[in-house]
């Protein structure tokens, strides 16, 4: 049904917006790099595609006069979700333009801020693009060349939002949220054991447990180790049996 499609598309857009924000925060700091700029560009393009798709779907649904009242209320709620997402995206795009202009990567006198972040943001970008690994193929002056494109994209997005408002009449203040306060606690986010420990203090001793579900890499490594152990045990048992048989 239209609603399910809309919801999945909106979830995707929300995910991409969240990842884009993480990427923009990493700009200008020591984890900035050519790769990051390329990731930003790709995430942006994906976000725009999703936005256009969402918009066409939702506008067509809302223009339809034959839907029931509950359906209409539901679509209005989805519309408010969509427009808030777009507002966030627009602001982040404008900020990334500003920070990109302030921190060009190739100028040696413009140092990057030592914020303490040194890792790469590949995983975040991969999450946004819904791929396993990111492929980097851009040329080396992407930070300056991209800015012009970014400016045109920002104006596109602003235009789209203006059109949206003119065409669809939804009163955002009339929408009632389905979630109540504290709803995020009930969502099935297994709050990582590691994160809570380390981060909640920079003052007190962190009680950390092992990496947990932090990154896929350490999980994979531990599974490998366990499998290797069992293989060795089986080989030992087989050899022992053969030795016993032989004698």
């Amino acid at each position, binding site marked *: 049904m239209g609603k399910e499609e809309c919801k999945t598309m909106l979830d995707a857009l929300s995910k991409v917006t969240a990842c884009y924000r993480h990427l923009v925060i990493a700009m200008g700091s020591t984890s900035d790099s050519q790769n990051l700029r390329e990731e930003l560009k790709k995430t942006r393009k994906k976000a725009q595609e999703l936005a256009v798709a969402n918009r066409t779907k939702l506008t067509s649904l809302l223009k339809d006069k034959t839907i029931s009242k509950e359906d209409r209320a539901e679509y209005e709620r989805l519309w408010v979700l969509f427009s808030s997402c777009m507002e966030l995206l627009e602001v982040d795009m404008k900020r990334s333009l500003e920070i990109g202009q302030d921190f060009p990567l190739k100028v040696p006198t413009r140092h990057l*801020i030592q914020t*303490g972040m040194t890792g790469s943001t590949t995983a975040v970008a991969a999450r946004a693009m819904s791929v396993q690994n990111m492929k980097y193929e851009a040329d080396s002056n992407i930070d300056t060349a991209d800015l012009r494109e970014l400016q045109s994209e920002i104006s596109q997005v602003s235009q789209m939002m203006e059109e949206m408002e003119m065409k669809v009449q939804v009163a*955002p203040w009339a929408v009632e949220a389905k979630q109540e306060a504290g709803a995020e606690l009930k969502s099935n986010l297994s709050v990582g054991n590691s994160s809570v420990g380390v981060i909640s203090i920079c003052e007190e001793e962190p009680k950390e447990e092992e990496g947990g579900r932090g990154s896929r890499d350490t999980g994979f490594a531990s599974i490998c180790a366990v499998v290797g152990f069992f293989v060795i045990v089986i080989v030992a048992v087989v050899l022992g049996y053969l030795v016993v048989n032989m004698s």
Partner: protein
Amino acid sequence: MTIRTARPNRVQEFRPRMHCLKKLEAFVVEMQDPKNGVKGSDQKLNVTTIPHVLAGNAIIAWIANKMKTTTEEANVFGTMLVAYGYIYPLENHRKLVMCNDASLYRFQAPYFWPSQKWVPQDSDYAIYLAKRNIRKKGMLEPYEEAHYNHLHEWLNHKWDFIVMQAAEQYKAGRDRMKPDRVVFDCQERAFWIVNRPPRRTHSALECVPERLLDPNVEEKISFDQHRRMHIFYQQAIMRSKVKSSVSIGALVKYITTYKNHDPFLAPCLPSNPWQTDNDSYWTLNMRRVEVPTKMRVERWSFSLFELLTDLRGRDDFKVFLKKEFSGENLAFWEAAEELKWGTASSMSAKAETIFKTFLAPGAPRWINIDGRTMGLTVKGLEHPHRYVLEAAQTHVFMLMKKDTFFRYLKSPTYKDIQKKAQNPEAHNFSPAQLEQNACNRSPGIDPIILWQQEEEEKAKAAAASAPVDVKAMMSKIDRKK
């Protein structure tokens, strides 16, 4: 009909320009120089090591060296950097100061720097609080809880979006490596402490009122404005000026007299209500308090003007004058004040009564002013206006000041009230008690009740001071007999 939602104009909200921001940004970038900048070290948190942590004394030494100033100035500058949010403290994260010791600091990401254009929005704050809620499993700090509930109420229509976005941002954050996650959380927390400060945290980013004019647009001054400016400056040159030695001398005298009475310069007893949320200072200094405070009584001795403007002092003065049987000067002065500040419709009636009571020859409360002033006033009273009694009032004020005021200060009435005046103990609240006080603020006395009390007092005073009707008195005595 189309509904135009008020889209938050996030680009230009005409916030006042903070000229220091561009310069501060250049300064912070210079601090990053790998050769000449501040040297960072690593921070060890159990298993993870996070680079780029700086000691307070290193930063201050670098600033002092770079700007060629003293260590104290560099310390103040460093504190401003922390208060604006360019550098955040790792240890005592709520106290936004730079300490000249080994306490640890780190630079803030450019996304979280203060800017004129980008106002931290409430929806962003709501997303941050929701994320924090997830991480802390519902245990938010009390001020955060208060904000959370407030935002849930008024951002309710966006609440689904906020929850969804918070969950997504949380999940995306977990894709980064562990040290980066720690740093990111510290950064975000520092950003929101600067922009939504908890109680008793002083950040430099106060919420200033927004302007109607765009401060970034340079305005052109027209020919007519130039002409008017020219006339103004010419007139200013021709005005007679007071010598600065004279005016500064007067200022110094004023400051030495009043410096203990200014709550900015000296602590006021029992405690400043704006700081401790305890309003005993106001209740002790009310209009009709029985026993005034010592500071108030001391203030009455500064000048007659102070004595008369403080209504409690005026009451005391009246008591003294009653004993001396010379209350007509003060009564005339009060009546003239009433004429000045009263309604236009009552003016002619008031002028009549004043003339009959104070100025007519043989009046019951005749005041003793010189002939010229008397003549002018009586003539003016034929066509009364608000300031018709101005000359007479000034004359009477001078009489009181030169003669009665000093007698009052030496009188037993004043000495008595000086002895009786109370000196309240200074309050000494602990931070927990201050929080309590803040929650229990009372709205104070309704002004209508105060006004009613005033009216009753006035009626009583009028009845008491009405000229005694001798015949009625005699008839009463006769009846008693």
